């Protein structure tokens, strides 16, 4: 069984809290690894910092580190199937190049992510590397450019080790919606890793890469982070450039990060965040060094969270929520209270309205965003006698069931005569949701809830019941509607699998408060 909550493994970052005991945190605690039966766990403190220290001390070369991860990928990939594409030869070449540079230019040449192997969700464009979005219609497609987030990682020295599996174009909550393969949960092979960024979450969980990028439109980073027991961060809308992210729902999409520790996740965010002239919706707000804001908690006596106001969203612990999940969340909040914070329940009356509004808005935007996959300029083209047949055949063969369903829903919602009843009304609901979060965040520094109503469920369990799958997104979609940042950290376990199944605590902050969020690793 997993260890109980341990105070010393809780990291926080909160600028406003005067803590005499506060100090910069340099070592990173790790997430509980999945059982080692099929997956060899990495070193306990596998992290960006330990890689950096290895390279700096000369203890290990980038090539050795890369070889270690690649060998683990070879061993675990047959059962986990996190990757659609593994860029092994490129990774080896880049690592060797890095080693040569360290030899010739010295250690000053090390970028902040030098030698860090990252997995990149396959809906993020990578130059000259397959980028399919998990869709047949883009099978074999190789973009001409790197997504901004990917480019920034590479510029910081990171090595892209491969493209991770996802529900087609990000539409799904299990990664079963991939056109290519089903990814499994490293904690229990018979279960889903969550979705849509399931491959990115499982890859970090199985230590196939150090950190990974995902995308979050309605919970696609947070829910798989919870299912796979890793840290997942959905930044504020606009915090990270969407340039190069295959659009699902443009007004909701955010590039997010996964790591095995809060520190790693924060480091990645610092690298990828910031204004991008290629994305007019990206924010020009200053990007702090998130990781350096972290402080450790040595003891309960220090009450490091003194004065922090935490609101538990009432609506997220009621009916429909797995009792084990609710127990874990309550235990976590109790713990937060012991650390000095003031925990109260808060009601967000519009909470239940968010889910239908989300599905209308996301589907509407998707129906438009996916029009470009028409078989004309790139991707799969079915040869046909006339234009309509070309469109019809290319799209019906190239796009999967769930995607087609959402395109149809979205097309319907935007049609003349229905627009006001669906799209416009959903936008009104979105305004309400935003408002209710704004109000709550005036009273509380942080709002907490589960990241999902249950732990990881069985593969195939909800595949024929889309409504049940959609309902699972209830915890996360409101945050996208409101554009807020949210962090998911493992906070406990429920019965299941051979060693229990992880449960994630979702912490929601004010816009651009990524740094003032409590960042806990329980």
């Amino acid at each position, binding site marked *: 069984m997993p260890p109980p909550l341990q105070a010393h493994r809780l990291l926080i970052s909160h600028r406003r809290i005067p803590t005499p005991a506060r100090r910069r945190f340099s070592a990173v605690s790790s997430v509980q690894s999945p059982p080692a039966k099929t997956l060899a766990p990495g070193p306990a403190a596998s992290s960006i910092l330990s890689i950096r220290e290895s390279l700096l001390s000369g203890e290990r070369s980038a090539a050795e580190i890369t070889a270690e991860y690649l060998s683990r990928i070879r061993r675990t990939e047959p059962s986990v199937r996190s990757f659609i594409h593994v860029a092994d030869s490129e990774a080896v070449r880049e690592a060797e190049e890095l080693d040569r540079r360290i030899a010739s230019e010295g250690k000053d040449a090390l970028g902040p992510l030098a030698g860090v192997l990252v997995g990149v969700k396959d809906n*993020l*464009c990578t130059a000259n590397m397959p*980028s399919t*979005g998990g869709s047949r219609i*883009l099978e074999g*497609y190789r*973009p*001409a*450019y790197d*997504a901004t987030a990917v480019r920034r990682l590479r510029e910081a020295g990171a090595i892209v080790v491969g493209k991770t599996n996802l529900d087609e174009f990000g539409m799904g909550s299990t990664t079963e919606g991939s056109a290519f393969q089903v990814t499994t949960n490293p904690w229990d092979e018979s279960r889903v890793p969550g979705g849509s960024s399931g491959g990115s979450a499982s890859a970090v969980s199985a230590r196939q890469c150090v950190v990974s990028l995902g995308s979050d439109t309605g919970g696609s980073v947070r829910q798989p982070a919870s299912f796979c027991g890793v840290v997942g961060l959905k930044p504020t809308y606009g915090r990270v450039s*969407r*340039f*190069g*992210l*295959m*659009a699902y*729902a*443009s*007004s909701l999409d955010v590039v997010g990060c996964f790591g095995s520790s809060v520190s790693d996740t924060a480091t990645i965010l610092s690298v990828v965040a910031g204004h991008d*002239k*290629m*994305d*007019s*919706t990206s924010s020009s707000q200053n990007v702090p060094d998130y990781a350096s804001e972290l402080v450790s908690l040595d003891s309960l006596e220090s009450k490091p969270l003194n004065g922090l106001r935490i609101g538990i969203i009432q609506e997220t612990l009621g009916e429909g929520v797995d009792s084990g999940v609710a127990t874990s969340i309550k235990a976590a909040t109790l713990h937060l209270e012991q650390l000095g914070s003031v925990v109260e329940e808060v009601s967000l009356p519009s909470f239940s309205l968010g889910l239908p509004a989300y599905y209308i808005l996301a589907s*509407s*935007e998707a*129906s*438009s965003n*996916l*029009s*470009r*996959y*028409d078989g*004309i*300029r*790139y991707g799969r083209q079915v040869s046909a006698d006339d*234009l309509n047949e070309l*469109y019809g055949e290319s799209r019906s063969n190239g796009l999967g069931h769930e995607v087609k369903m959402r395109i149809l829903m979205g*097309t319907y919602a*935007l*049609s*003349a005569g229905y*627009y006001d009843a669906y*799209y416009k009304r959903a936008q009104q609901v979105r305004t309400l949701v935003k408002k209710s979060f704004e109000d709550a965040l005036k009273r509380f520094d942080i709002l907490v809830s589960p990241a999902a109503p249950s732990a990881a469920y069985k593969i195939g369990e909800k595949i024929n019941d889309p409504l049940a799958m959609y309902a699972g997104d209830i915890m996360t979609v409101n945050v996208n509607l409101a554009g807020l940042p949210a962090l998911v950290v493992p906070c406990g376990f429920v019965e299941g699998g051979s060693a229990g199944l992880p449960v994630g605590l979702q912490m929601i902050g004010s816009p651009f408060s990524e740094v003032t969020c409590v960042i806990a690793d329980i």
Partner: protein
Amino acid sequence: MNAGLFFTTLHRPPLARFTTRAESAQATEPKAAPQSIQMATKEAAQLKMQGFEAVIGIETHVQLSTVTKAFCSCPYNYGSQPNSTICPTCMGHPGTLPVLNEKVVECAVKLGLALNCEISMTSKFDRKQYFYPDLPKGYQISQFDIPIAKKGYIDLDLPMEFGGGHKKFGITRVHMEEDAGKLLHSDSGSYSQVDLNRAGVPLLEIVSEPDMRTGIEAAEYGAELQRIVRYLGVSNGNMQEGSLRCDVNVSVRPFGQSEFGTKILLHKEGQADQIVQETRLWDESSQKTFTMRKKEGLADYRYFPEPDLPEVVLNNDYIDEIHKSMPELPEAKRRRYENMGLSMQDVLFLANDDNVARFFDSTLEHGSDAKLAANWIMGDIAAYLKNEKLTIDEIKLSPLELSELIASIKNGTISGKIGKEASPYFVLILVELIANGGTVKAVIEEKDLVQIADPAAIEAMVDKVIADNPKQLEQYRAGKTKLQGFFAGQVMKASKGKANPVLLNKILGEKLNAN
């Protein structure tokens, strides 16, 4: 849904309606009127005879001459190799996002102000969705319910040959959008190719109120719009290159029919008269329209706000700045010229061409008399331009030298005219200046065009001409005094135009009337 069609469907039930699109390949550009408008002129004239009147509204697409496209940094040059100015963004590749070229907003505000519109301090972009191979994203970024400018009008003066008169036509809206690419069909018709060079090029769509009743009005509306965009420098307004495209909506109704007919009436009459609603295409070679699309229903473009672009928010300083930078527009120019005492004929000629107006204004700045400058520009200079197929900014004559020339006529140094004809001597100098440039003084010296002002020399020439033409002399003396012009011309010819016309006429008169 389509704002451009509103008046034909709701408020003014038509008996017939057709839309033309001047998008066929065109051999020559008309002086002013788009072909579609020429067609409307013909149709309107026929209708009038049959007791009907036309109700005409025009949607115009103006392609902006910005350095880069609307939402990416590709350039656009008409006639480039297919698919040579494209990038992942304007090809609609996965993950790409539009970034608005601020010049597009500037051009839109300029045109909005020029058309006396209300400028929307906050406007937004929307997606207009349909599938077509020349539309890379499957939607066009446009503006739907909040255009950047609306509720304006255009002032114009109808040409004198069509009776003249000042007109004011309403402008419903001006909005920003992007152009689509082009389909190139194979000769065999078995395949088509897509050229995306034009995809993403910025356009302004200008929708007029259905205020025009005749083809002439429609033609002048188009011509005035073309002048305005050229004056503003926002577009070259060139129809052959597709920089200016007009969709003309024409509905037909009997004279005197109330504006708000009922649907039943429409339906009944529609059936009885077998009238169809269709889109007709103008064919330049046959000078006719033919059916392009029948029974055009209202397409559902599923417009919704473009989530990739923030709202366009303007402030008063920005608008004031643009206002200040704007040149004098055709209407203001026409009123100014009119106030100088020029005839409307002159006013229209001078003001309606940006280059001519600039030349004229510059000539005036050098001190010339407006009427004289107008006469020379509209007379010999215009004739020369027409002959040589040149525009006024392509000739070497500068406004300064024209004003010098006019000054020397005015102070009597040279005579501009003999009777009603331009003096050949003067024309020689003018042509030399137009063709080769230089100063008035230098041309006279270099080309040995110094005027012959020696009475004895002129007298000798006069004598010779009289001696050579005894028959005409006889007729003159028999009372046909008009022949003095003939003699003067012969003397001028003999002097290669250099004889001082005042002296010439004086001596010639004396000699002819000597007996």
